C-alpha cells in the first residue's frame, strides 16, 4: 500500500501507561509506539480505552503511571498546549466543532497557534495583522480545497450534515499542518460513499504531507485496508500489536474482539 512509502523512526513511544478515574481503570500498563509516516490504528470494543489512549497522547488526560516520549523528549504527562505546538493534532469522536462559528472560522482556529500579531495590532487591524490574516486565510483555503468544502465556507457548522461536520473537524486539524494526526473514529456514522471519501482524504494526507496518523476506527475493513500497524485494546489492556495480517491471525484478538458482535 501507498507504494514507495518509507516508514521512518519511532516518533511517539508510550511506555506502561495506566490511567484510572476514581475506581475505574481505563488503561492498564499499555505500551506501544508509532513510527514516522505510518498509519497506526487502535481498535477494540467499546469502552476498551481507545479514546483515553488518544487523550493521553495529547494531554487531555494525565496518566497515573507511565511515560510518553514524543520526538525523543520523554515526559510523565503531556501538556495539551505543548502537544499542539509540537505538531500533534486530532479530531474527535463526537465532533467537537465550535458550534457558534462558521466553517471558515472553525478551520481558521487551526492556524491560531501560528498567528502572532498582538492584541492591539488586531484591534486596530494594522497592516501587519491584516497581512497575517490573509496569509493564513490562504493556507486555510488550500485545506478547504483539499477537502472539497468550498461551498460551505460561510455556513455555521451546526447547520451542516453530519458527514460534512466530520470533514470540517478534519480540516481544522489539517490546518495546523500537524506532524502527528490523531483521528478518533473519523468514519463513524457515515455511509459507504462518505467513508470512501474519508479514506481517500486520510491516505492523501499521509501521502502528500507525510503526516503520521494514529487512528481509531470500528470498521475493520477500513482499518485493515489503510493502516500499517494495528494495536488492539480490550478492557484497558493491550492484547495485540502488529501488521493487519498479524492481527487477523491473532487468537487473543479473535476471541476478545470478534467475539463481540463484530
Amino acid at each position, binding site marked *: 500500500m501507498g507504494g514507495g512509502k518509507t516508514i521512518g523512526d519511532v516518533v511517539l513511544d508510550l511506555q506502561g501507561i495506566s490511567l484510572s478515574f476514581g475506581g475505574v481503570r481505563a488503561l492498564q500498563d499499555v505500551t506501544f509506539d508509532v513510527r514516522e509516516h505510518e498509519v497506526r490504528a487502535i481498535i477494540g470494543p467499546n469502552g476498551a480505552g481507545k479514546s483515553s489512549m488518544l*487523550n493521553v497522547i495529547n494531554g*487531555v488526560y494525565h496518566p497515573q503511571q507511565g511515560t510518553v516520549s514524543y520526538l525523543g523528549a520523554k515526559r510523565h504527562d503531556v501538556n495539551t498546549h505543548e502537544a499542539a505546538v509540537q505538531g500533534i493534532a486530532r479530531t*474527535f*469522536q*463526537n465532533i*467537537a466543532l465550535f458550534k457558534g462559528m462558521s466553517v471558515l472560522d472553525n478551520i481558521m482556529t487551526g492556524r491560531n497557534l501560528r498567528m502572532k500579531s498582538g492584541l492591539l495590532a488586531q484591534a486596530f487591524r494594522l497592516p501587519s495583522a491584516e497581512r497575517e490574516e490573509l496569509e493564513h486565510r490562504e493556507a486555510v483555503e488550500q485545506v478547504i480545497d483539499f477537502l472539497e468544502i468550498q461551498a460551505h465556507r460561510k455556513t455555521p457548522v451546526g447547520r451542516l450534515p453530519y458527514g460534512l461536520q466530520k470533514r470540517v473537524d478534519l480540516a481544522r486539524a489539517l490546518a495546523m499542518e500537524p506532524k502527528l494526526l490523531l483521528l478518533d473514529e473519523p468514519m463513524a456514522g457515515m455511509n459507504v460513499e462518505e467513508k470512501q471519501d474519508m479514506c481517500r482524504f486520510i491516505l492523501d494526507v499521509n501521502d502528500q504531507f507525510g503526516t503520521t496518523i494514529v487512528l481509531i476506527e470500528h470498521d475493520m475493513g477500513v482499518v485493515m485496508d489503510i493502516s500499517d500497524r494495528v494495536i488492539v485494546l480490550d478492557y484497558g489492556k493491550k492484547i495485540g500489536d502488529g501488521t493487519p495480517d498479524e492481527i487477523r491471525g491473532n487468537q487473543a484478538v479473535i476471541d476478545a474482539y470478534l467475539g463481540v458482535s463484530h
Partner: protein
Amino acid sequence: MKKNRNLMILFAVLLAGLIAPLVTGASGAGFWVEVLLGGLMAGVLYSLVALGFVLIFKASGVFNFAQGAMVLFAALSVARMAEKMPLWAAMLMAVAIMVVLAFVIERLVLRPLVNQDPVVLLMATLGVTYFIDGFGQTVWGSDIYEIDLGIAREPVMILQSVFDGGILINKDDVAATAAAALLVILLALFFQKTKTGRALRAVADDHLAAQSIGIPLNRIWVIVWSLAGVVALVAGVVWGAKLGVQFSISQVALKALPVVILGGFTSIPGAIIGGLIIGVGEKMAEVFLAPIAVKAFDLAGGGIENWFAYVLALLFLLVLPEGLFGEKHIDRV
C-alpha cells in the same frame, strides 16, 4: 491527595480564625459564644433560602434568582392575610398561593424555555423576580407589615454561671432554628420515604430515567417549585417575624448565593452546612476582623461581611471547583 490536603489547610485556617478571638483575648468566652450563635442563626436563614435554590436547581437545572422574591411574596401574603384571619389559616392560604405560583411559573416560563441555555433560564427567573416584586407590592402594598408569632422579643440571659456576663438568647431565634430544623427533617423524610420524593431524586440524576418511572417532567417541576415556595414561605415567616415584612427581604437571596456555591448547587446537606459556615464566618469576620482592618488601613467603617461570604465561597471553590458536596465533572471527548 493534594486536593484533600488543601481542603484540610483551608479548614485549619478557618478554624484558627474562628478561635483566634478567644485565644488572643480579643473577646470573652461569653461574647464569643453569642457571636457564634448570632452567626448560626443568620446561617439558618441563609440555609433556608439556599435550600429553595438547591431544590429547584436539582430537579430542573434552573438557577432560580427569583427565590428571594418568592420569600418576600410568601411573607407579604402571610402578613397581610393574617390581618384578616388567624395566622395558621393565613399560612395555609399562602401555601396554596405558592403552589399556584409554581404552577403558573412552570406553565408560562419554564415549559416554553425547556432545554434553553442555563444563562437564559437564569435571566428568565430574573424577569420573574421583577414581576413578583411589582405584583406583590400591587396586591399587598409596600409598607412594613408584621407577622406576630406570639414570641416575646426581649432577650433572656442564660448560663450566667458558666460565662462571665452570661449569654443573651432570643426566643424568636430559637424558634426560627427549630422551624428550619423541622423543615429540613420533613424534606429529608419526603425525599427518602415517599414515591414522589424518590422520583424527584431520580429526576435530579437523570431526566430520562425519571420519565421512565412514569411521572411527567412537567409535574415534577410544579412539585419542586411548590416545595421551593413552601421553603420560601418558612424563610419569609421566620425572617418577617423577626424584622418585619418589607420589600427589602427579597435581597436576602444575594446572601444565599455564596451558600449554594460553597455547598454545591445540587446538595441539600451542602445548603445547610454552607449556610452555617457562611453565617458564622461573616459574623465572626465582621465583629472581630473588621475593627482590626479599619484601624490598620484607616477605613471609613467596617462592613466586610458584604463580601466576606463571597470571598470565603471563592476560596472553597478554588480548592473544590464544584463546591463542598457538588457533583464532580469529568470532561469527555
